């Protein structure tokens, strides 16, 4: 579906090194790595937000629809949830429906700032669904939520992925436990400049921890 041929990216100093891989339909990728290593930079590049990158660095993006769940909700604060969803192409009925899917049925007339952080993030997730994405990008979707809300959202994302088996997902996280629940493929970004140190399907769930343990060791010794 997508072919990454990123030559590198630097902001004064090199951040991303060469990254080449492919993303297929149904891939559920968890992108792990130390904080500040460039995970969001990579996600923005895939989403096409990095104007310095040539178009062929992410080959095939023109034909696909992308839903991006940013760290902040980034809903338009002056528009109701309903209007926010309609702006990306949903009809009134669909908007209500997508809000229902994320557990916000009946909240269509609320403004984003009237909601709690967890609810706003779910509303933003509903907007991702409203574009009927081929690729879903999640940037630390469970950060700064309390454990109960994070758990609920995780289960919700899992359900949505099962309901749309053709959809690919890339989820930035630094919690290996997220990968156990959501991922069928693992990326580990590390180094200076950062490269994908690991790009393999996920096998046994318990292997993830061992793997992360091994991958993170050099980090400790630095």
């Amino acid at each position: 579906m997508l072919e990454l041929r990123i030559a590198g990216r630097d902001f004064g100093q090199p951040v991303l090194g060469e990254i080449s891989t492919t993303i297929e339909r149904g891939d559920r990728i968890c992108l792990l790595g130390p904080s500040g290593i460039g995970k969001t930079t990579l996600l923005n590049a895939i989403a096409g937000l990095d104007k310095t990158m040539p178009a062929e660095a992410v080959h095939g993006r023109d034909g696909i629809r992308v839903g991006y769940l940013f760290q902040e909700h980034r809903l338009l604060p002056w528009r109701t949830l309903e209007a926010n969803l309609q702006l990306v192409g949903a009809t009134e009925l669909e908007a209500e429906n997508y809000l229902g899917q994320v557990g916000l049925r009946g909240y269509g007339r609320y403004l984003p700032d009237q909601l709690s952080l967890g609810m706003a993030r779910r509303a933003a997730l509903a907007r991702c669904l409203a574009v009927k994405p081929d690729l879903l990008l999640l940037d630390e979707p469970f950060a700064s939520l309390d454990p109960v809300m994070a758990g609920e959202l995780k289960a919700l994302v899992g359900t949505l992925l099962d309901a749309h088996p053709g959809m690919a997902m890339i989820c930035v996280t630094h919690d290996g436990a997220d990968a156990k629940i959501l991922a069928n493929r693992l990326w580990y970004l590390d180094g200076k400049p950062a490269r994908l140190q690991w790009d393999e399907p996920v096998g046994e769930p318990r292997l993830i921890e061992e793997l992360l343990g091994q991958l993170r060791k050099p980090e400790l010794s630095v």
Partner: protein
Amino acid sequence: MKTSSGRPPVWSYWIVLPSFVLLWMLVAWFIQSPLLPTPLNVLDTLVRESASGELWHHLGATLGRVVVAFIVAMALGTAIGIVMGRSRTTNALFDPLLVLMLNLPALVTIILMYVWFGLVEVAAVTAVVINKVPNVAVTVREGARSLDYRLEDMATVYDFTRWQRFREVWVPQLFPYLMAATRGGLALIWKIVLVVELLGRSSGVGFQLHMAFQVFDVAAILAYSLAFIAVVQVIELAVLQPLERRSSRWRQPEAAHA
């Protein structure tokens, strides 16, 4: 105005201005000069001019010029402000010109327009527009510089059309700046329109002031000025304030689940 303890009582709005009128009345009675008519004299003139239809004719002419100049100046100034606020290169290219235009006296523009294009309506309105555009551009540029890049990225990812980006993402963020430009603009424009009328038109409040000045008819001068101040006040109360209330409602939503 709202204070921390809530709204001030209604009567507080009705102290200073009526006292001022009272003072004017006392002074006028005391010195008994035609150069300072009493408020009642002014009201008399206002009623007479209004009954003869003169007031409405000239008020209408001025208002028409103000409205046209205002719309054109706001549209041009907003466009220039957005482009200069979004592109550093364009800003660097045109900033010196903008500073020059900002400091160009209104009177110079008006005289030049009349000299070059004759004493015609288009020259009059163009002169007003040229005076106002730089102010709008500078204000809107400030707003365009502070547009939230996170919402820009969002609009890019979700393939907003140009119109959607302008209407849904930019205008709400620029609104306070547009409002400031509108308020300042209205006040500035009608004052410049009067000068334009005084120098080269044969209708409008400015023209009437010119006539009244030649015979030192202070009552007429005050009557016409007050009439137009009233018009601007009506625009403020009937158009601007409701617009502002409606557009700012999202800023203080009742906390439902915060």
